[in-house]
């Protein structure tokens, strides 16, 4: 099983690298909104600080955000949703390994391609924009599981949303809504700490912050002990829920798929 999975990842990666200019352009497009807010907030902070963050702090926050966003970005709408809509999922259902490995292979392949593009740019931007971030060992150690959970949460959340394709031909509205919620509540338009009252509450409760913003905040070190613990609690809780919903929908979806006809 492991060997088959690894071969699948490698072959997927090679085929993605062939189309790398296409994916670089995609990655470029995803990089721009956080970059805009990087400039907006650092201009706003100017010489002083806003909400405890200085210009350099905002720069650091957003550069890490771009990285985290790219690592956690859910491609499942294409790798799963489209396959279901076009009936190509049949190929995957016939394989001895679960289709989720196919999605995982695309994940790894895609992320590596995007990172090949993004990391040099981020390094260049760091020299240009001079971020300021105090890295402690504790924060870095906490950052890694937060990042992993963020990826898992976004992946499984995206997966169950993509499975809606079993029931409806177009889930556009939901995906558009999802994008907006991620934009507002995941720390893109502003770090969650700077959001006004009710938005901040929403952001803390809903899963979106834990997909992108939370790991960035952990690394930045601005979270208190209590905030850290509640944050992880929410993150683990939402991830577990996402996995449960995914498994439920997968089983129901297959039943429906077989009934309706592949």
């Amino acid at each position, binding site marked *: 099983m492991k060997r088959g999975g690894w071969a699948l990842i490698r072959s997927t990666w090679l085929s993605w690298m062939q189309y790398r*200019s*296409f994916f670089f*352009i*995609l990655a*470029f*497009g995803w*990089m*721009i*909104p956080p970059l*805009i807010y990087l*400039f*907006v*907030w650092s*201009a*706003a902070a100017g010489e002083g600080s*806003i*909400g405890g963050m200085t210009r350099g702090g905002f720069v650091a926050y957003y550069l890490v955000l771009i990285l985290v966003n790219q690592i956690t970005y859910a491609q499942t709408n294409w790798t799963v949703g489209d396959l279901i809509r076009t009936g190509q999922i049949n190929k995957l259902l016939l394989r001895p390994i679960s289709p989720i490995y196919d999605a995982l292979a695309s994940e790894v392949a895609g992320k590596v391609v995007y990172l090949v593009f993004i990391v040099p740019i981020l390094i260049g931007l760091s020299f240009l*924009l001079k971020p300021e971030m105090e890295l402690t060992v504790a924060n870095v150690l906490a950052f890694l599981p937060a990042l992993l959970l963020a990826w898992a949460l976004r992946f499984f959340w995206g997966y169950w949303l993509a499975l809606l394709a079993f029931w409806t031909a*177009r889930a*556009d*509205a939901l995906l*558009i*809504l999802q994008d*907006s919620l991620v*934009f*507002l509540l995941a720390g893109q*338009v*502003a770090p969650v700490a*700077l*959001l*006004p009252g009710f*938005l901040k509450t929403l952001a803390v409760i809903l899963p979106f912050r834990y997909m992108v913003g939370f790991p960035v905040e952990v690394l930045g070190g601005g979270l208190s002990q209590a905030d850290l613990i509640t944050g992880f609690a929410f993150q683990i809780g939402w991830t577990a829920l996402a996995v449960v919903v995914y498994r439920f929908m997968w089983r129901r979806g297959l039943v429906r798929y077989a009934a309706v006809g592949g």
Partner: protein
Amino acid sequence: MQSLRLIGAFMRTSFQEAAAYRSNFFISLFTSILNLGTGILGIMVLYGQIKTVHGWDLNSTLALLGVYLVVSALRGLFMGPSFDSLAGMEGEIWSGAFDFTLLRPLNTQFFVSFRKWRLFSLIDLLLGLGVLVTAVIRLGTVLSLVRILSFLGVLTVGLVVLYSILLLFAALIFWSPGVLFTWVFDGLFQMARYPNVLYPGWLRMVLTWIIPVGVITTFPAKALTATLPLREFLPGLLIAVGLLIFSSFLFKVGLRKYGSASS
């Protein structure tokens, strides 16, 4: 004039094509309202933390958003759909259907610029105007006739810049048919939501001289709500004219290349 009659025929046909897919309307409406909402919320979050940034406050930035939405709507009205039919792997140039476009007794640049319309964008236009008018009222600006006319003039110049950039990307398709240049532009155009001055000097130069998105939105907003000195506007006007001439020329060269390449 025959051109106007033709544009009318193109609009009618696009409407018929869109009507073939009914569900799109509600999804488009939903997307537009969501887009509007997040844009406004974004600005409110920023100005919830600080009163002004480099001389721009909530209301003037809101006015800029209004201009941005108006310009995006006009782009989505005909420029976007028309040029997009050439691009990408489902586009005319890749598939070879461009041959038929060349066979028509019309100026190809005119045909390719005006032949597909997305009439829903008129709703986007209304939403954008709504934001713009609200912002202007909140700013308390006195809208004299002179101010409105200069706004319209500067907006037109901005639209010429936008059209020229899109035409340039369309021309590049003749050399690289598969590349989605407009995606790159979309990313850069997002920067036009916020005033030019917010961006660091080097980026401001890029956004004024290389891909003049700043000219497209910041200038009209300033003309309407504050002041746009002539010496600041004049370079923008020159860029607009220069870009238009250059991209039209490049398009002609691209046509020539298509006519020399293999079948």
